[in-house]
């Protein structure tokens, strides 16, 4: 469902950040993307979320070449993705409910459906009952779970997480990873960028390692 075919990303001031990257992910697969900082992990994820376009090669998502995605198509492609960030990227002045509901409202769902889905999503990450809280009153682990609930509320086929456990202690990290495993088990493809080697080794999923913009092990 996700194919990188000889992808190179070049920035004018920094040169090639990604060089000739090729790999594939199947539906329902879970993989870690790792490498030293500056190896190109974030850039690779940005190509999938079409925050950047690649310079050469192609990125295919569900058979669609993202290089050819027109500006007005991008929102609709992103609705099929669940994006998770190290800094959670929650709206601090909105309740947990409103944060999770945002993708649904954007997609034009009605009130009843929004309520139902948000509750289901919050239930899945174990935050049911905290809908009315504001993000700042939650712990880091809880905030990240709100971020995850928001990412999965639209039922995406691919979840992309950029250092989701980067700000969490080991215990919270494994909780979050456990959540990802649950989504993977129901058929969602999950790609997690992390440099938490312990976690990677313990869980034993496929690992994509980037080194200075090149894919080392696949």
């Amino acid at each position, binding site marked *: *469902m996700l194919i990188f075919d000889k992808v190179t990303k070049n920035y004018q001031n920094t040169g090639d950040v990604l060089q000739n990257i090729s790999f594939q992910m199947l*539906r*329902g697969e879970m993989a870690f993307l790792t490498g030293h900082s500056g190896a190109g992990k974030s850039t690779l994820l940005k190509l999938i*979320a079409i*925050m950047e376009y690649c310079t050469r090669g192609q990125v295919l998502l*569900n*058979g*669609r070449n993202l290089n050819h995605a027109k*500006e*007005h*198509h991008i*929102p*609709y*492609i*992103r*609705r*099929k*993705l669940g*994006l998770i960030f190290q800094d959670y*990227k*929650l*709206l*601090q002045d909105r309740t947990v409910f409103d944060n999770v509901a*945002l*993708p649904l*409202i*954007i*997609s*034009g*769902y*009605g*009130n009843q*459906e929004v309520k139902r889905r948000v509750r289901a999503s919050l239930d899945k990450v174990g935050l049911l009952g905290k809908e009315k809280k504001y993000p700042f009153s939650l712990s880091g682990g809880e905030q990240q779970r709100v971020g995850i609930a*928001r990412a*999965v509320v*639209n*039922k995406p*086929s691919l979840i992309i997480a950029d250092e989701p456990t980067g700000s969490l202690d080991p215990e919270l990290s494994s909780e979050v990873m456990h959540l990802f495993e649950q*989504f993977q088990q*129901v*058929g*969602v493809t999950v790609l997690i960028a992390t440099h938490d080697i312990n976690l990677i080794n313990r869980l034993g999923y496929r690992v994509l390692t980037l080194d200075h913009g090149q894919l080392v092990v696949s």
Partner: protein
Amino acid sequence: MHHNKHIQKMQPRIKPKPSNLQNTKYRTSIGDRFQNYLGLHAHALFSSLGRLLKTPFTSMITIIVLAITISLATGFYVLLINVEQFSDKLESSHYISLFLKHDINDADGLKLAEQIQKSAAVKTVKLVTKTTALEEFKHFSGIGESLNILDKNPLPTVIQVLPTNIFEDSVEVQQLIDALGRLDEVELVQMDMRWVQRLQSIVDLAKRGVFLLSIVLSLAVLFIMGNTIRLELENRRDEVLIAKLVGATYAFIQRPFLYTGFWFGGFAGLSAWIIVSLILLGLQEPIEHLSLLYDGKFTVLFLSVSESLILLFVASILGVTGAWIVLHYQLRQMTLE
């Protein structure tokens, strides 16, 4: 429609394993979608108003700046319609005055007046007989008593002729004046055409001036609005970026900001209306006092209902447009880093 097609394309080609994360059970009908869409608009409309009221001081400053700008244009417009009214009211100066020879008595004057009335170039004719002229003169000159020492009325019979096309056709008016001057009974033809025409061309000039000024002031409104929205956009940067990342279209992101522009424009229009009306109220009394000293025909014209509605409409549209221009350029440049 495009989007739907596109979404279909995005559906996975291989049937996925059954899972509770796949969206198959719930479909929304077109009617529901339309209702949800209206809901989004209503929400944007009121949430943007709410935001405006949340920061009353800053909102007020922006609205006042906009209102002063708009009231300048509106004020000049109102001034103009009042001056125009004034020049219309000065009908007496549109009359051609025919001073008849001394030996023409009132009865002959009346006959002549009736004859002149028949011409197509003449709208109305007014006869001022020697007697009425003397009485008016006594009344207005303030030397009435001393006139009694005259044993004969020295004033001539006067016929006042109002031409049909006073502004439209000056050639015709001139021809009329020439023709009237050739009449045997007429001693002297007098018309202060030039004064009327000057006033008219001043009004025309002012009209164009107000029009051009309105364009400049509208541009000012667009820029003030645009700058306000730019700041608002900067304040809500995170919100915009996150919405973008979870798949919001530009239309969705823009909507509340456009409504913000609408509210600012609308409130500014309303305030401008109030400012202009207050100024007119303040001027009304002295103007009407002044008018009494002339013929008392002049009353201050306020903005009519339709003019007021147009003012509100144009102000709101300017607000939305100013917001839209900035959003159009700024939103596309906003990225995560």
